[in-house]
């Protein structure tokens, strides 16, 4: 029975199962293959736009440099002028999520960010590293972060509890936001497309009538592409603001 959610299953393309070291099993799954595909696309784009170090930029290098400049001033405006050490990290994170989202918009492609492991793994590791960064940089003073500045003393314990919970909720909500958007969007497309197929294949007259919901369907695909950009932008913007919290503690 066709379930719209089975497009997100990781199927192992080919696996090597050897009984050595206690049933050793390594498999190249479609998730791994698509991660590699995204890496090849990003690496290839950078190699092409490198324009073998010519002084006069080609179209590709202009596009890539303006793209890099927009990420750079986002990081500079968010984290601060002299904190550009985080720029490569945020840039690669943005590019990975953007390209994997755009690749997943092609029909019959597997969505890398629709696997919970990738999204929650990304967000929990970022959360842990930001907390460790804050602890090493500020030590005990880090816990002053949970007391919002200028609030009456009686309110402090309640606010600290809420701030603590919303600080720990960051680790889950960051990844779950990306995961939920992509899964819900692709499931919506899967259901609408299977619905339209039934309508298109009934009769000629109905064929022309269903051109209207088909226009709605292409609008939703446009929306899905916009959501891919928005999710990549918001994920990296929130990572920048979390790093800013770790750096400056309010």
């Amino acid at each position: 029975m066709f379930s719209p959610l089975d497009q997100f299953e990781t199927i192992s393309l080919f696996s090597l199962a050897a009984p050595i070291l206690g049933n050793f099993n390594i498999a190249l799954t479609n998730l791994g293959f698509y991660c590699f595909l995204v890496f090849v696309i990003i690496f290839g784009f950078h190699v092409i736009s490198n324009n073998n170090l010519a002084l006069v930029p080609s179209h590709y290098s202009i596009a890539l440099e303006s793209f890099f400049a927009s990420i750079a001033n986002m990081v500079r405006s968010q984290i601060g002028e002299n904190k550009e050490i985080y720029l490569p990290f945020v840039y690669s994170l943005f590019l990975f999520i953007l390209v994997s989202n755009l690749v997943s918009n092609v029909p019959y492609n597997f969505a890398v960010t629709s696997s919970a492991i990738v999204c929650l793994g990304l967000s929990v590791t970022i959360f842990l590293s930001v907390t460790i960064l804050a602890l090493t940089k500020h030590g005990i003073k880090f816990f002053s972060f949970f007391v919002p500045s200028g609030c009456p003393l009686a309110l402090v314990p309640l606010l600290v509890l809420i701030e603590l919970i919303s600080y720990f909720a960051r680790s889950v909500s960051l990844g779950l936001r990306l995961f939920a958007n992509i899964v819900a969007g692709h499931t919506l497309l899967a259901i609408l497309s299977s619905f339209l197929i039934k309508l298109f294949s009934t009769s000629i007259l109905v064929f022309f009538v269903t051109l209207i919901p088909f226009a709605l369907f292409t609008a939703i695909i446009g929306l899905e592409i916009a959501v891919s950009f928005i999710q990549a932008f918001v994920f990296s913007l929130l990572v920048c603001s979390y790093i800013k919290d770790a750096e400056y503690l309010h």
Partner: protein
Amino acid sequence: MLQAAKYLGAGLACSGLIGAGAGIGLVFAALITASSRNPESRGTAFGYAILGFALAEATGLFALMIAFLVLYS
């Protein structure tokens, strides 16, 4: 019994459309006030209104999707 639950579930799932309706009303209300207050910014304001309509509509479509899912599979 199962079929009855399907109908009830689909009916309840439609409650998700309340927000989309209200959101689209708010967006076009703002568009009307903005275009009356500042007529030459009508072009971009209309563009934002269409974008806001599409994004608010998306949440309604998600609720409708669950209703179809519950009703037919």
